[in-house]
């Protein structure tokens, strides 16, 4: 077991390291240097020089890279150009919105998709199955930001149950609170979850159907297990393998979709941060947020790999003995 975990750990770190180099590198190979991009075309030569000094561009790239990575590992980061605060502080603030949002969306997705997918697979070709498949086709076709707008139209404009956007904050002194905060995140979470649910439902359904046609299901039936018992004891665990794979991929999708959704609902999250940073040409923030988001995706993939090993003993034990 441990060699597998170690392998994955190395892979995780290696990917993280390479990612950091790429992220850093992309911003090095800009048309013009970073200072020019930040200040734009109308910058005066003096302001350019000042910015270059501020960014430390006179130092060689390698030492800047090391400084950056070293800083990140110690929990310190560069200063944002537009906000004049360390990016780490900015990002932490914004994560208070994005992380709960992502967790809510992922929970809805997993719950709905597993229920619908298993139901559709166990009642294959019945009306219920066709209904689920049709629904998922529609779910796949909807742009999530359009769904978001439609939800706002229905629940905020028409029914006026929630506001059309914005986030009141988690603490009650600021006029927010646990309930108010959650209420503000429900519509965005649903909008995010819709497409992912559609995808995961289909994957779950086909994984369960595939598992049900395996030989060991026939053996289990020959032992005298009922169809229900076979489903729970044999099929589901095997079906989980492809499902978990997709769930891992979906997390990355979720993070990026959050960028768009946060803009639709004007939520002060990471997505909106990076969007504003791009508009302000604040490359420091852009670089650090991209690094953070990529790191999160890589971390999730690492956990998914560990989950595999727990589900599938063939990975733990490796080569067959005779």
């Amino acid at each position, binding site marked *: 077991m441990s060699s597998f975990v170690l392998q994955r750990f190395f892979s995780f770190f290696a*990917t993280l390291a*390479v*990612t950091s180099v790429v992220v850093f590198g*992309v911003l090095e190979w*800009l*048309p013009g240097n970073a200072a020019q*991009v930040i200040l734009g075309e109308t910058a005066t030569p003096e302001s350019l020089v000042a910015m270059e000094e501020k960014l430390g561009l006179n130092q060689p790239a390698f030492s800047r890279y090391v400084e950056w990575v070293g800083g990140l590992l110690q929990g310190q980061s560069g200063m944002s150009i537009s906000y004049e605060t360390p990016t780490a502080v900015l990002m932490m603030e914004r994560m208070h919105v994005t992380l709960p949002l992502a967790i809510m969306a992922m929970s809805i997705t997993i719950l709905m998709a597993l229920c619908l997918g298993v139901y559709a697979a166990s009642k294959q070709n019945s009306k219920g199955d066709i209904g689920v498949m049709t629904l998922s*086709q*529609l779910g*796949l*076709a*909807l*742009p999530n*930001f*359009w769904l978001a*707008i*439609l939800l*706002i*139209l229905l629940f905020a*404009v028409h029914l006026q149950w929630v506001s*059309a956007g914005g986030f009141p904050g988690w603490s009650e002194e600021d006029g927010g609170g646990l309930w108010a905060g959650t209420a503000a995140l429900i519509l965005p979470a649903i909008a995010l979850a819709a497409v992912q649910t559609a995808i995961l439902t289909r994957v779950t359904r086909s994984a369960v159907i595939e598992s049900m046609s395996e030989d060991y299901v026939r053996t289990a039936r020959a032992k005298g297990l009922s169809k229900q018992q076979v489903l729970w004891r044999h099929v589901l665990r095997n079906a989980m393998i492809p499902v978990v794979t997709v769930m891992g*991929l979906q997390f*990355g*999708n979720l*993070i*990026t*979709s959050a*960028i*768009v959704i946060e*803009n*639709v609902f004007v939520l002060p999250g990471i997505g909106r941060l*990076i*969007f504003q940073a*791009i508009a302000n*040409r604040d490359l420091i923030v*852009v670089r650090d947020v*991209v690094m953070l*988001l*990529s790191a999160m*995706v*890589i971390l999730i*993939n690492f956990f998914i790999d560990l989950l595999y090993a727990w589900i599938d003993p063939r990975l733990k034990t490796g080569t067959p003995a005779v």
Partner: protein
Amino acid sequence: MSTPQTFQRMTQRALKHHSFAVGAAIVLLIVISAAVSLFWSPYPVGDIDIPNKLAGSSAQHWFGTDSLGRDIASLLLVGSQNSLLVGFIAVGIGLGLGVPLGLLASAQRGWVEEVVMRAADFTFAFPALLSAILLTAIYGPGLVVSITAIGIFNIPVFARITRGAANAVWSRDFTLAARAAGKTKWTITWEHVLPNVASVLIVQATVQFAIAILAEAALSYLGLGTQPPNPSWGRMLNEAQSQMFQAPMLAVYPGVAIALAVLGLNLMGDGLRDLLDPRLSRTR
């Protein structure tokens, strides 16, 4: 059976397949709209008509007008050109560069395959939309940059799929026989591997087409895609959002257009998957 007869039979089967028929019909509708809009639209899309802004549906304006008085129907029609263009080029980039890479990886195996697949995996690790946003941030927003960004992310997708399917073909005995007969890897790839992976690629192409349309819509919504005055369904949604209270329907039509296009492509892809699957073409 002669080729025209096989083709006829294939078409008959295709039309009987519900998913494919409906999907193809929708896609055809959109293609026709785009083609028609090249020559004609109810109103020129640049026509601003402020006095008539935010009008509801009427005989003159089937879907009403937007905040600048432009005819929604015309915008939708011309906007289809944009979506189709993005889809074609993005998928084209993916196929053009991804398929050769996948074929190369599969034919050569060894370290070549490792490198190609690691690079592909790595690109997957970067959320695609995020990197598209980054690129548009650095190089400026616009159609070209967004198509390129989306297209670049199709490359690893097609490379992976091609390599997987190609590996399956290489492991079959007839390729071994061809090698034994003295054919080079490249001849075999061209004559045998490629035709056999074609069906998988066609199906994936429709899927990626749909994804490209969605991605471009998202980028346009954020203002990073097609720039004014060229119409774009995604950007129309953004503009509509600010008019939500006055003219809610404006937020519906462009979304329906996008959803319809994606739905049509998905149904077509599902249908093609069933029709082209060699296992299912004979009796069960």
